[in-house]
């Protein structure tokens, strides 16, 4: 599996599928455990993706000078 090519949406779809799977099907414990494990892994990946996005937003916000700073530079 090439991680980088996996989008947030596709990972989310997978996660939802796992959850649905665990809900509807009469799984063996091993299958349930496998679903759970994969699900948690995907959750963590999704968290990482969101964290990165958040961090980037913070940086972008920090870079954009406020209007007051801009005006004071003018003078």
């Amino acid at each position, binding site marked *: 599996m090439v991680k980088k090519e996996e989008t947030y949406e596709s990972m989310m779809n997978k996660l*939802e599928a796992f959850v649905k799977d*665990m809900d509807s099907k009469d799984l063996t*414990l091993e299958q349930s455990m496998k679903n759970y494990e994969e699900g948690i892994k995907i959750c963590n990946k999704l968290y990482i993706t969101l964290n990165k996005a958040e961090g980037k937003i913070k940086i972008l916000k920090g870079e954009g000078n406020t209007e007051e700073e801009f005006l004071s530079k003018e003078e």
Partner: protein
Amino acid sequence: MYIKTLTVSDLNNYIKKSMDNDFILNNTYIKGEISNFKLHTSGHAYFSIKDDTSKLSCVMFRTYTSKLKFLPQDGMKVVIKGKISVYLKDGTYQLYCEEIKSEGLGELYLAFQKLKEKLEAEGLFEAKHKKALPKYPRKIGVVTSPTGAAIRDIINVIKRRNNNVDVLIYPALVQGINASENIIKGIEVLNANKDIDVIILARGGGSMEELWSFNDEKLAYAIYNSKKPIITGVGHEIDFTIVDFVGDLRAPTPSAAAELAVPSLDDLRDTVMNNKIFIIASSNSFLIERFNQVKFLKRTLELKSPENYIINQYNHIGNLKDILDNKICNKVSVEKDKLSKYVALLNAHNPLNILNKGYSIITDKKDKVISSVEVIKHQNLVNIHLKDGVVSMSLTEVN
């Protein structure tokens, strides 16, 4: 009676002597209308005055013509002060003029009107011929008397308004019969000077006669033909002369002419300052408007920023994770329950439990359960399993 024969010269001399000694002829005022007026290059003027029936030759020498306040013109009604004497060479008597005054101001005014109408008909006053004044002149030419108050006023005004403007003065006569020619020359000279941006023609206040040099046809044409714009400031506000009509701009006084010619540096500075303030203010407000626009868009952007989406996603993932946790926990507990049921069942079926109740199990040597007598018949040794141990027994008899 002896009558002496006289030579012509003798006679003319005699008549002259007689006339010169005559009290009335020697100092008299004569009024009449001027005709054939000619100003000779020598400065002497020759003309005659007449009334309805008679004519009298007149001569005015340079000494007196130079004091004339205006150039007499044919048809002008005048009063002349002078004396009657004989011109020996021709044997004619004539009036030797000392002063010429117009018979009344009306006369001069009529002459003025006549010239004005003539020049107007010739198109000299038309607005389309008026030259525009330079907005920021660097060098001003002034045709005026070098000694009058006019030139001092003009210099004062120009220097006060803009000290960087140069003034070139052409000193001219501004009254008397030669004044017009003199002024024309000045206009020509200043026209030939490339640096001059505008010409001021000025003279301080005076009587109509004193200002008469400015009512000259040739001067009018010189102004009309001038390549450089001419501002006239002749006399006081109430005085109008021909040059005022033909000039490019009429100022009521010499000072006013200077004011019209030179823009005030202070005023210019004020204008520039006002424009500067206006430009700064308008560009500032332009900027502020743009800032507000950007600010508004930024706020909109922030409202729609992925932050909210991310927070929602956190919740969503959290929920899914909780579901996952629940599911797996449920699964495990379900399996646990299942297991414990089987354990209970197993326990229930555990044969060892029977031993606890006091029963025992018999097995062969290989611990195979023996449940019938037929089997036990063939055994000589059995194990008896009790609740607290195993006992080996040897068999002797079977019933």
